[in-house]
């Protein structure tokens, strides 16, 4: 029985200071938008200040794991550990970049009177993701996932007059609401099996194997449908290419990094806290023996990356190609989870921090070019490498890093992933992943070929503002530096793999 009496409310409120400061920023943006109708240009500034304040609160939480809103012991709604703090930092960095992106995005600037709702909804998404990464209870997982989804449905169709945007948001909400409904049904079955919504309590009840295996498998697959939708795992990926192509580019970049990060955090916490019994001698998680978890995860990830890479080969639209490439990357990340050990988890964290910079960078260059030529077709990129040497080189670096070639950071991410796989004796899987990387080289290099080898007569000129240069530099520098000097990142990731209560 749970009685909802919280004895130490102030302590608990202190634990969610980052979320509170985000919520206050949201309110400040809405009020500022209503009162000072003429000075919309301060809105991104307010969001940046709010995000930086939140950033410092999250840094303070790092290294101080505790439960918040606990009824007793580990029966809590939130568990604030290094793992969640790490993902919160990733999400905050992404959001800061997205706000900077939006300031120079033509699509966003085409509706100047709706900037207030734009930044407010972005912050709403961030609040949802913050609760998602630290949620310790199925109720909170579902609610925060919906908070994230509902804001992103609206943002995907931000430019109301654009047919592409409206279609993207329609497709997003239909697929999204269906899969979250299926997830809710799965949660209800899991609740029926175990009698609790708290992940720790479900774990201790499931340890005595009384549940019917088929019912259990059904409920797990249904819950995976909801989480897999967020991280776009095949077969729950159908929305990804359409929404990524249709939505404003800044939102596409946000969806492809931040909401994927939140989805992975939920997936990992759900798997490890709910279904792992403990560690065996060599550090692998011992999972409850209802299903062959490793097989399930490996098959999901191999199907995902193979499909993503092969479908990307035929794409002529750069945004759509990056959508399929992000599906493929979800497959690689899923492999790290499928190792089912802390080493695999570390590989996921390293890979994700690198994926953040290279993917955002690729989308940023695409956005700057699309602002001028109004197109993302690869055919329109012919010869752009000569008229725009800086942007062309930058895109080249990001794409090479996405492929995973040295000396860029993408190589380090893949390296740690493969080391984890080989250590776990999953050689066949590692080879399949390696072959997939070779396939991906083709479609990334195809863009560079169009930019640098195809000749054209037309001349394109883009005047970059100082802000554009700064953002570009902030994105390129980590991709190049982490490729050679990655020890600090790896150390932070090593400290962040510990989940609370395990």
């Amino acid at each position, binding site marked *: 029985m749970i009685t909802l009496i919280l004895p130490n409310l102030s302590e608990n409120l202190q634990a969610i200071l980052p979320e509170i400061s985000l919520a206050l920023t949201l309110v400040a943006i809405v009020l500022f938008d209503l009162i000072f109708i003429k000075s919309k240009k301060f809105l991104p500034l307010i969001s940046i200040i709010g995000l930086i304040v939140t950033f410092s609160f999250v840094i303070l939480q790092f290294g101080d794991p505790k439960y918040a809103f606990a009824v007793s012991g580990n029966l809590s709604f939130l568990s604030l550990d290094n793992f969640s703090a790490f993902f919160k930092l990733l999400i905050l960095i992404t959001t800061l970049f997205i706000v900077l992106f939006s300031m120079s995005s033509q699509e966003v600037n085409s509706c100047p009177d709706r900037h207030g709702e734009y930044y407010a909804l972005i912050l709403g998404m961030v609040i949802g993701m913050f609760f998602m990464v630290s949620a310790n209870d199925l109720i909170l997982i579902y609610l925060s996932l919906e908070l994230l989804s509902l804001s992103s449905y609206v943002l995907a169709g931000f430019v109301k007059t654009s047919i592409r945007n409206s279609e993207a948001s329609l497709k997003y909400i239909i697929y999204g609401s269906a899969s979250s409904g299926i997830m809710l049904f799965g949660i209800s079955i899991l609740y029926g099996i175990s*009698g609790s919504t708290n992940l720790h309590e479900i774990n201790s009840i499931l340890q005595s194997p009384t549940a019917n295996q088929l019912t259990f498998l059904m409920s797990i697959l249904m819950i995976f449908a909801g989480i897999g939708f967020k991280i776009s795992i095949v077969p729950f990926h159908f929305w990804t290419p359409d929404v990524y192509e249709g939505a404003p580019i800044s939102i596409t970049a946000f969806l492809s990094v931040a909401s994927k990060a939140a989805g992975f955090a939920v997936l990992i916490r759900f798997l490890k806290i709910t279904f792992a019994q403990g560690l065996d001698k060599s550090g692998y998680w011992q999972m409850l023996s209802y299903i062959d978890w490793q097989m399930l995860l490996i098959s999901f990830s191999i199907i995902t990356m193979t499909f993503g890479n092969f479908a990307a080969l035929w794409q002529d639209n750069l945004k759509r190609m990056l959508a399929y490439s992000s599906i493929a990357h979800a497959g690689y990340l899923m492999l790290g989870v499928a190792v089912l050990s802390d080493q695999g988890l570390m590989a996921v964290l390293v890979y994700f921090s690198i994926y953040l910079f290279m993917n955002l960078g690729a989308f940023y260059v695409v956005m700057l070019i699309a602002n001028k030529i109004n197109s993302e077709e690869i055919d329109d990129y012919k010869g752009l490498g000569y008229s725009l040497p800086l942007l062309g080189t930058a895109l080249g670096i990001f794409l090479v890093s996405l492929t995973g070639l040295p000396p860029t950071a993408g190589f380090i991410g893949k390296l740690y992933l493969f080391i984890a796989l080989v250590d776990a004796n999953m050689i066949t899987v590692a080879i399949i992943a390696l072959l997939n990387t070779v396939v991906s080289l083709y479609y990334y290099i195809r863009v560079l070929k169009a930019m640098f080898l195809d000749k054209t007569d037309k001349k394109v000129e883009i005047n970059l503002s100082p802000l554009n240069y700064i953002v570009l530099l902030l994105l390129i520098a980590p991709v190049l530096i982490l490729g050679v000097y990655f020890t600090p990142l790896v150390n932070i990731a090593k400290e962040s793999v510990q989940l609370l209560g395990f």
Partner: protein
Amino acid sequence: MIEVGLNHFLVVSTLLFSMGIYAIVTRKNAIQVLMGVELILNSANINFIAFTRFGNFGLQGHLMALFVIVLAAAEAAIALAIVLNIYKTLSTVNIDEVDSLKD
């Protein structure tokens, strides 16, 4: 007289769930698809309440059901706004005709 037990509720909820899935898969009209989603959410709600009532699980199930009712309303509001916007730009709510983005 038959005693109404947990299984009766579960059968009803599963039927509702299947009808919801059927509506999502077969309907062409966006509004009808969204009605299917509402059916799924409510079937899960029936599950939560039934499990709480017959399993003596405490209050979490009720809590969840209450939250889901609120969420369903929010989702319906946003979905209808998006469908309205589609109708304004394309003068149709048939999902098959909204297909400018495809491979």
